[in-house]
């Protein structure tokens, strides 16, 4: 740093000694150093490794590599994977189909196009939907608001892949494991384009990602002083003009952020696209990547996909930063305007209430209802008559199976279920505990080091996992493990590490908002009174951070417990299955009833934990 009129004094022995002691003697510095090292090891190195992997020939991929790049041996550096994807041959069309006949189209362009289509439609439907709901809930005199606000975010708490399963209970066609869905069972012919593919994926995702714009826009709306709108009224503007020229511009930053986030999240989602797309070979980037990663031969190609997805996500988020100029606070309007006069809806009151009611029925009650009902059915899609209902999927023993479709005992008789339950509990408890503790430390470092180089460095590094779709993130670790620590492949430890690191950004955000509330002066007062670093942490910071820590813990607990996308590609070992993956797997193995039952258990688990988190001031809107 150049300081005018300021010369650094000569480095004498004594100055060096003291400077060294000043740095090392302060535990805070040591912790910052350890944190930076750790973030480097767990975030930067995996990223570099993955990139390098796309340039490396492994024993598994040697055969494949030689086809593109003859004469290479395992361990060689080669651009075969890039050639495999982008080589000149890939642009040659077989037959008369033009671009559609090329390799590059099937491998890359089609999934990319599908991903963008899904991202585009999910965004243009769910953002206005969420924003409208936010406006209705925050700024208008809509009736029954108390009840609505209790229910409106519950659909978001139902994991998106559970919603995909629920969609299948209704729209499934016999092509899918030979089972009927509700509609086919009733004799309503369901066209395949509706049951599977883009429309299904988009609709299910809309019922999930509406929550982003709802949460962000309602936050922004709440922070707007209603006096701003009243001023407009005094100037003679009508309601529509006020909405258009005052309210909307003020919440625009939050709408933009929600848009960006929805695009990036919907492109990164794996579970929904896999459930609803793979059956008819409708691939998006995430599912295509998984397809490549599944084989040792083509894993490197999968990593290229992963890089592409990271680039897409990072690109959208960077655009967001450029447009909005801030990263952390999406609601950019400050002020203390808490007094809000509600806007009378007049004649639109009841239609709007009906609209919200329908939304809640469609997004919450129906998915839950169909999941619960199917879990009791003997033959899915054959109606709810008593002779088609059974408790088998929940408690049946294998010898009592109503038909040979059931090749597993009911949940509570199934050791696999209990093992997965145990794994889930183990993973969520350890994972969220570690995440929450680290989160508080990160928060401490970033708030106390705000504006200093190390504070910024930690903040930037922590943010990286946020840019990466869960599947891509797991792919990186998978690659790292298979290269340097094969013993970790298929291990619980790897799943745990990935879950922890992936939740760093969220945990550190909750940690820093927690630490921000603890004024630095409280610590300085302790310093003056003779308390050292650890004493300060123990006597001042921890007692004051308790509440925030607990809610942060519970929220990461929920998030880890329901996670599917992140761990799907790491589930190479049956012993490590979690509930979500078990459910996902059963649904693949034509055991929808059991899969549904597991979903219900997970949802119940999430709702209960969320209730508890609520008590401690946590809120689902903080866990995005």
């Amino acid at each position, binding site marked *: 740093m*150049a*300081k005018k009129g*300021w010369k650094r*004094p000569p480095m004498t022995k004594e100055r*060096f000694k003291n400077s060294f002691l000043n740095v090392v003697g302060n535990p805070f510095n040591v912790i910052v150093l350890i944190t930076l090292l750790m973030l480097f090891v767990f975030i930067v190195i995996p990223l570099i490794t993955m990139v390098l992997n796309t340039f490396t020939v492994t024993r598994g991929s040697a055969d494949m590599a030689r086809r593109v790049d003859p004469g290479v041996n395992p361990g060689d550096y080669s651009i075969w994977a890039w050639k495999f994807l982008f080589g000149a041959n890939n642009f040659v069309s077989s037959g008369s189909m033009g671009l559609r006949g090329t390799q590059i189209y099937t491998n890359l362009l089609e999934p990319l196009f599908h991903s963008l289509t899904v991202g585009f439609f999910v965004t243009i439907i769910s953002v206005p939907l969420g924003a409208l709901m936010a406006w209705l809930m925050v700024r208008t005199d809509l009736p029954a608001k108390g009840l609505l606000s209790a229910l409106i975010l519950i659909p978001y708490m139902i994991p998106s892949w559970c919603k995909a399963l629920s969609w299948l209970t209704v729209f499934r066609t016999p092509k899918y494991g030979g089972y009927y869905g509700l509609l086919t069972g009733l004799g309503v012919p369901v066209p395949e384009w509706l049951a599977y593919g883009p429309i299904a994926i988009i609709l299910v995702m809309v019922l999930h990602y509406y929550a982003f714009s709802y949460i962000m826009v309602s936050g922004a709306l709440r922070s707007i002083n209603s006096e701003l709108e009243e001023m407009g009224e005094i100037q003679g503007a009508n309601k529509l003009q006020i909405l258009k020229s005052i309210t909307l511009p003020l919440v625009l930053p939050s709408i933009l952020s929600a848009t960006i986030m929805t695009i990036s999240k919907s492109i990164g989602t794996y579970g929904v696209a896999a459930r609803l797309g793979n059956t008819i070979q409708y691939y998006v980037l995430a599912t295509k990547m998984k397809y490549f990663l599944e084989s040792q031969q083509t894993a490197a190609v999968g990593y290229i996909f992963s890089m592409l997805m990271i680039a897409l996500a990072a690109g959208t988020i960077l655009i967001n930063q450029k447009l909005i100029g801030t990263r952390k606070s999406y609601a950019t309007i400050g002020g203390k305007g808490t007094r809000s006069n509600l806007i009378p809806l007049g004649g639109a009151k009841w239609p709007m209430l009906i609209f919200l009611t329908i939304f809640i029925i469609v997004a919450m009650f129906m998915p839950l209802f169909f999941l619960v009902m199917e879990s009791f059915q003997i033959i899915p899609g054959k109606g709810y008559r008593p002779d088609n209902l059974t408790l088998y999927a929940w408690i049946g023993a294998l010898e009592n199976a109503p038909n040979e479709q059931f090749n597993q005992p009911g949940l509570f008789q199934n050791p696999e279920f209990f093992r997965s339950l145990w794994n889930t509990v183990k993973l969520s408890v350890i994972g969220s505990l570690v995440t929450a503790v680290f989160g508080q430390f990160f928060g401490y470092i970033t708030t106390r080091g705000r504006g200093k180089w190390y504070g910024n460095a930690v903040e930037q590094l922590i943010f990286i996992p946020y840019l990466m779709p869960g599947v891509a993130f797991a792919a990186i670790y998978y690659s790292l493990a298979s290269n340097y620590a094969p013993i970790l492949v298929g291990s619980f430890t790897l799943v745990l590490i990935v879950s922890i690191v992936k939740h760093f950004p969220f945990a550190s955000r909750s940690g820093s908002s927690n630490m921000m509330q603890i004024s630095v002066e409280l610590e300085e007062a*302790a310093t003056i009174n003779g308390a050292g670093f650890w004493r300060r942490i123990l006597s001042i910071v921890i007692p004051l951070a308790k509440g925030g820590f607990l809610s942060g813990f519970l929220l990461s607990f929920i998030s880890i417990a329901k996670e599917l996308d992140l761990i799907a590609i790491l589930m190479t070992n049956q012993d490590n299955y979690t509930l979500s993956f078990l459910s996902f797997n059963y649904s693949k193995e034509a055991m929808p009833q059991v899969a549904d039952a597991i979903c219900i258990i997970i949802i119940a688990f999430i709702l209960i934990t969320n209730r508890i988190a609520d008590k401690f001031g946590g809120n689902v809107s903080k866990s995005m």
Partner: protein
Amino acid sequence: MSKIVLSHIDKFYGENHVLRDINLTIEDGDFMTLLGPSGCGKTTTLRVVSGLEKPQHGTMTIDDRPVIDADKAFYEAPSKRGLNLVFQSYALWPHMTVFQNVAFGLKIKKLKKAEIEETVMRALKTMRIEEYRNRYPNELSGGQQQRVAIARAIASSPKLLLLDEPLSNLDARLRIDMRAELKRLHKETGTTIIYVTHDQVEALTMSTKIALFKEGEISQIDTPLGLYTNPIDLQAADFIGTPRINFIDATGYYDGDTLKVTSAFGEYVYPHETLKLDETFPKGEEFACVLGLRPEMVDIYTQDPHHKNTVPAEVYANQPAGSETLVTLTVGNTEFLAIQVGLVEYDMNQNVFVVLHPGRMNVYNKETGRLIKFAKTKHKAGIED
């Protein structure tokens, strides 16, 4: 009991040079106030003294014991400097009771339980809050929280007590009470106090010495009376005193012995010994200068008092305010404010006579803005001045 010497302290935040060559000596038993507008570096100086900030340059000693030697990167830990600090926000730990707050530092010193109990209660008694010992900070009023913060700071019997704008969060009445309280505390304990404030009334009423800060530098160190009577430059003069000082444009002529100042009030001649000769001002030619006239040094008469410094004036406006009356007067085109004790009624445009005391006015060089002629302090000033 301690003497603190700061020399050549420089502090940077990034490229921001917030303290520029601070030199300050605080004698044992002083009540030293660091006074200045916000952002002038006074709080930073206090934090440097406390050890919460490390300056990049300079040294500091307490009783000749080095505490800071920036060139050697030596900074003694705050807790070893034998001082304590009262924060502007009080910084009371919300999860501890009043007793626990005050006892915290003593526990760290590993005092015996009975001793802690006794020391804490003594501090609480000094601040007259012993009945709140089991309350939590959020159950106390602002004034009571303030007392807890001070009790916490004095419990460890510091040799040096630092106070950072401690009264700024209190309402006007409480502030006057606490001022008295702090003054008593200083007298009773004999502790050296460094007190930061932007409120010149606090500074003038409580301190034994004031260091006036301006943009990261100390522009003047003096007693309250000295600072009030002879502010070192126009900005300082403007800052100190309510209502503010009158500045009267004038022309000066210095012949090497006496300074002749001509203004709307007439011509004043100041002898050699009242001049501040280390300042630059032209010799043998006329130059622009400014007379500093305190409002309370203007006497108003409705009849000619036949005093040698009488000037006829006209009342421009009259603002009676109970204990005092502010009168705006004009002499020719020159407008100035006078303050009279008690309720006095004047009509608008009424012709009056004002008696001025040239010896008790300051003269500033307009070009440099610096004081070039001292005013006599009030108790030395005779009627004739």
